[in-house]
């Protein structure tokens, strides 16, 4: 993107440019902060914006500008994209829409006709689009990948990725890398065999697939007992990150199936609960790092990997940071997957420590039993799919965290295709009050710099900006602005329903907006008129 174009985009107020989204623009997304071009704001997944019109000194005058109603109940989990004055979002039940980002008025709406009996463990949700050229890409609950025309919402192509009747669904936003879109499948509660796919943005043709559970003859296959690999799970249901210099895609994987019962899938169960580094062109595995081998507590490792270049032990290093559901904040070398450090960022009882090679030292007695075993973190993890944010000004990672321990029970369960396959059940430990927090962590030391307490476990991620502020929210429906350095709550507004998404920011006509869904509404805020 040239400087001239950037300026032009800034100046576009009444008439959006509707320019093409090029690969170059996505690579340089942080240089056009008026837009939000990809799920995490940039390939390095900082969910950070250089916009600073809304800042620590004026956040108290934030005012609702418009509210868009999706027309559906259920969790509204989208991260909208904003491209040259138009906001593109996905909704519950695979709805989608394009809005005038200044007024909230709809330009088009799309609703996919879904078959009955979709097996989506955690709601009929979708987390957003990817965009390239004049197209938007969505991965659907019935396991299709589709391309829509940006101006009309018309379907351009529609391809089948997997069989939804066997429990395969898509809930995450795709990632555009060069001429491909990358998507990962969900279904770890239904005994699927997970995969990460790449499709041609032009034709929808599948270019490669990486099976997250290795088949016979492939490396790692021997980490599965008998035929357990066939229903081994390891879904890849969130959006990864990309390093263009290394041409590597970083994509996290989820739990082995059944999640609570491991007696019939003895072994490390590769590549469940791992970070995968895949060659963007071929899908070949460059390296992997498994956070929680032979998981028994649903500690998916799908959380968004954050790519940061910082000195580590005196030398510049290409780092990958992940606040993992298992309660540890990890630092890896993203060139080779080498483990550097893991520090607990919440209460952890399942592991005594992470050893020098990155392998957990599992605490005796932490495995689920028939009667139930209390373990921390609980199954929803110390954090979950909602995004963290990395602020280069404070060099802090903001992580919405859950404070919950669960009682995990285990029992054998027969696999039936398309039925849940969990191996019993878990739930909050009896008599204990659950809670949550927004936490500011130094990713290099693991040190907690501040914490703002939430009443219950959150499902809203973080957005940090050059205004010295962090946006977050809670499951009681409060959308909140924090001082990035101190954690002081500067402003909040009750939106009337739990927030299940992570905020974004953009600007139109020189005015900065911040957008967040809650309930059936997508809310946009800006500073009030002076």
């Amino acid at each position, binding site marked *: 993107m040239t400087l001239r174009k950037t300026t032009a985009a800034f100046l576009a107020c009444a008439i959006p440019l509707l320019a093409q989204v090029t690969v170059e623009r996505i690579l340089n997304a942080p240089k056009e902060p008026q837009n939000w071009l990809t799920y995490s704001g940039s390939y390095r997944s900082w969910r950070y914006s250089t916009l600073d019109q809304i800042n620590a000194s004026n956040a108290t005058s934030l005012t609702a500008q418009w509210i868009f109603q999706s027309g559906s109940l259920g969790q509204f989990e989208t991260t909208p994209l904003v491209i040259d004055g138009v906001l593109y979002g996905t909704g519950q039940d695979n709805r989608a829409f394009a809005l005038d980002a200044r007024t909230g008025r709809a330009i088009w709406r799309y609703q996919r006709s879904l078959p009955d009996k979709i097996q989506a463990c955690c709601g009929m949700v979708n987390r957003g689009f990817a965009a390239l050229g004049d197209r938007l890409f969505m991965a659907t609950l019935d396991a299709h990948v589709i391309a829509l025309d940006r101006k009309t919402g018309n379907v351009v192509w529609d391809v089948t990725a997997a069989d939804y009747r066997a429990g395969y669904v898509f809930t995450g936003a795709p990632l555009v890398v060069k001429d491909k879109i990358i998507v990962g499948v969900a279904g770890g509660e239904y005994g699927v065999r997970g995969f990460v796919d790449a499709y041609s943005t032009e034709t929808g043709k599948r270019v490669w697939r990486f099976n997250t559970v290795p088949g016979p003859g492939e490396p790692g296959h021997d980490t599965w007992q008998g035929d357990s690999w066939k229903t081994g799970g390891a879904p890849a249901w969130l959006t990864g990150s990309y390093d263009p210099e290394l041409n590597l895609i970083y994509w996290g994987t989820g739990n082995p199936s059944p999640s609570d019962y491991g007696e019939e899938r003895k072994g490390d169960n590769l590549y469940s609960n791992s970070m995968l580094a895949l060659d963007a062109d071929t899908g070949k595995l460059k390296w992997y790092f498994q956070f929680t081998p032979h998981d028994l507590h649903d500690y998916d490792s799908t959380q968004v990997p954050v790519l940061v270049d910082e000195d580590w032990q005196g030398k510049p290093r290409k780092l990958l940071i992940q606040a993992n559901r298992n309660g540890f904040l990890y630092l890896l070398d993203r060139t080779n997957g080498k483990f550097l450090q893991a520090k607990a960022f919440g209460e952890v009882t399942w592991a005594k420590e992470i050893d020098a090679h990155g392998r957990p030292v599992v605490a005796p007695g932490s495995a689920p039993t028939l009667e139930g075993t209390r373990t921390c973190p609980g199954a929803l993890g110390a954090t979950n799919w909602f995004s963290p944010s990395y602020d280069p000004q404070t060099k802090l990672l903001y992580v919405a965290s859950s404070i919950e321990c669960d009682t995990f029970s285990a029992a054998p369960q027969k696999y039936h295709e398309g039925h849940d396959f969990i191996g019993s*059940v878990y739930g909050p430990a009896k008599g204990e009050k659950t809670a949550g927090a927004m936490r500011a962590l130094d990713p290099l030391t693991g040190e907690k710099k501040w914490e703002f307490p939430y009443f219950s476990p959150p499902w809203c991620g973080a957005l940090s900006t050059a205004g010295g502020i962090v946006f977050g929210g809670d499951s009681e429906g409060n959308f909140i602005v924090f001082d990035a350095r101190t954690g002081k709550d500067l402003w909040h507004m009750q939106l009337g329903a739990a927030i299940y998404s992570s905020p974004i920011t953009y600007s139109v006509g020189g005015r900065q907006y911040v957008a967040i869904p809650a309930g059936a509404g997508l809310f946009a805020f800006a500073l009030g008129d002076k």
Partner: protein
Amino acid sequence: MRVFLVFCCVNVATGCLLGQAEKKNPVTGDATAIREGSSLFRANCSPCHGLDARGGGRGPDLTVGRWIHGGSDAAIFQTISQGVPGTEMPANPFEDSEIWALIAYLRSLAGAPQAPAGGDVTTGERLFFGKEKCATCHMVKGRGGHLGPDLSRVGAARSIAYLIESIREPSKELSLGYIDPNNHYGIPLDYDTVTVVTAEGKRLVGVAKDEDAFSIQLLAEDDELHLLLKKDLTEVRHERRSLMPAYSTEMLSAGELRDLIAYLSSLRGEGL
């Protein structure tokens, strides 16, 4: 991925049979079916009915042989497959064989002893509204206080063992309160004792009807609602115990307990 499973409550409110009267469970007493039913129950039903089917926060005890919507195989089949309209019991997309396995499992649990028996309902009612002051906090069909759970249907929803435990050891398992329908993974508030202290030093004790990071809506011992901002409070303490006193044998004799239980068991929500 976090799972909040489909729950299957089996005897909550009034239902009807739709031509299922002839159905008989082909696998009653079959050990394999009971085992499969147990596994299905844990994964699907236990979030509401409890791991051992003795009742959870939302679903009733299924071990006591009291089937509000009919106790025949066909009636229970109907309740599981179609749910109970107007209650929290949803329809469940099980295959027929799975429902029969579930029923076989539930039948294998039934028949828990129902001691103590022989209490007097009228005496129990007198105790409830009189000497034992239960109605100070609990309401039955519009009569009584607001602080504790409404007990108009408690006899239909809870086993006698549970009722006895709730009287003798009320803090052992706190009853659940407000469920936010817009918070899909939310855990309901419970009847936990909350103490707050205002900036002026005023202390209030009660239960939270709702609460978030910034405010609390407290129903206090004075039976009044106190709508408070946390910035005006110096302390908000969750005590993780019930406000209800534990009724020892000195406060409530074994005979009085029998009468009170007889009264509570008679409360089935008729006329509501």
